[in-house]
């Protein structure tokens, strides 16, 4: 009987994907590589009185380094491949890939490199960095929360707002907002 209970308990523990209690950034120190599984790079562009454009980037790569001694020295580098943009509507995808927006025929990557990290709580921080798209680079700030952590894996929830006109993507304003809302889940494994 005791042996059976022990086996059930072991299964339950293994079934817990990540740590249940609120994770802390300090606990998550280490080097991570972003993984597609569990990640979702979503964005939306509100429309004036209409349906917002909602989409996501399917292909991306990146790494996150969180030093154990000082969280604020953390480094984040993310590369997004805009030809992988997906909205669920082929015509919108083609438009976003065209010269009107991402111009994927000439611009293959959007990159973000962090320059400063400011801890705002046990599991939260703001990450400042340089966002480069279509040859334009500007400083942007994203809010980051360590959502899950355990067994060598972490999931960061990231939110931020970017003015698309600065990157030469102002088509459709003011019909569609100049502000792009990013709401992303970045899953990473130690590596």
């Amino acid at each position, binding site marked *: 009987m005791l042996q059976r209970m022990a086996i059930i308990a072991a299964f339950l523990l293994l079934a817990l994907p990540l740590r249940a209690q609120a994770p802390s950034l300090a606990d998550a120190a280490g080097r991570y590589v972003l993984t597609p599984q569990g990640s979702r790079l979503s964005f939306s562009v509100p429309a004036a009185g209409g349906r917002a454009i909602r989409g996501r980037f399917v292909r991306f790569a990146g790494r996150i380094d969180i030093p154990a001694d000082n969280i604020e020295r953390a480094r984040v580098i993310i590369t997004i491949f805009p030809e992988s943009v997906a909205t669920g509507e082929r015509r*919108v995808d083609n438009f976003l890939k*065209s010269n009107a927006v991402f111009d994927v025929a000439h611009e293959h990557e959007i990159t973000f490199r962090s320059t400063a990290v400011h801890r705002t709580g046990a599991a939260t921080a703001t990450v400042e960095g340089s966002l480069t798209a279509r040859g334009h680079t500007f400083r942007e700030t994203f809010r980051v929360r360590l959502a899950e952590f355990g067994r060598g894996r972490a999931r960061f929830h990231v939110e931020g707002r970017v003015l698309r006109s600065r990157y030469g993507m102002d088509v459709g304003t003011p019909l569609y907002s100049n502000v792009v809302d990013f709401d992303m889940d970045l899953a990473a494994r130690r590596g």
Partner: protein
Amino acid sequence: MLRNTKDGYGLVAIVLHWTLAVLVIGQIGLGLAMLRVADKRLSFDLIQWHKSIGLLILALFVLRLAWRLANPQPAPEASLKRWEKTASAAVHRLLYALLLALPLSGWALVSASVLGIPTLVFGLFLLPHLPVEVSEAGEAFWRSTHHLLAFAAILLIAGHILAALRHRILLRDHVLQRMLRPVGARKRERT
């Protein structure tokens, strides 16, 4: 003279005629160009202009229709043969029907589109969508209808222009003159 008489058109009818003529011919050119330009950004902007101008045409046409109903209809030129009067009346009725149906079918096309792109008329106010079914099939139906009506309008307008030039150049009568100078001004010139 502002108002029509039995002898000819007044200034308001003439101004409305030529304003609509310029807008409709420009609108047809814009409609053909916006679907053919390779630059997707330019294409998007041209489509938004096409939608705004279409609504302006509809508004001016309603005004013109109201003005026509509130004014006497000038009698046809006495020199016209019977078949010419019949053909002229038929072309005018068809043109009126098209000037109503073309903007409405365009409005229905925008409303039925699964893309749900709002219409911000000249960047000033939002035009609500018509209560039509939003679907790929509905959008395809209204697109075909709009295109068919546009090509019918091109043929009718070409016929209308050629007929007016025939009267001016070959027959040398006053048919075109009636739409160039208001009835009061022409009478003063004759006396």
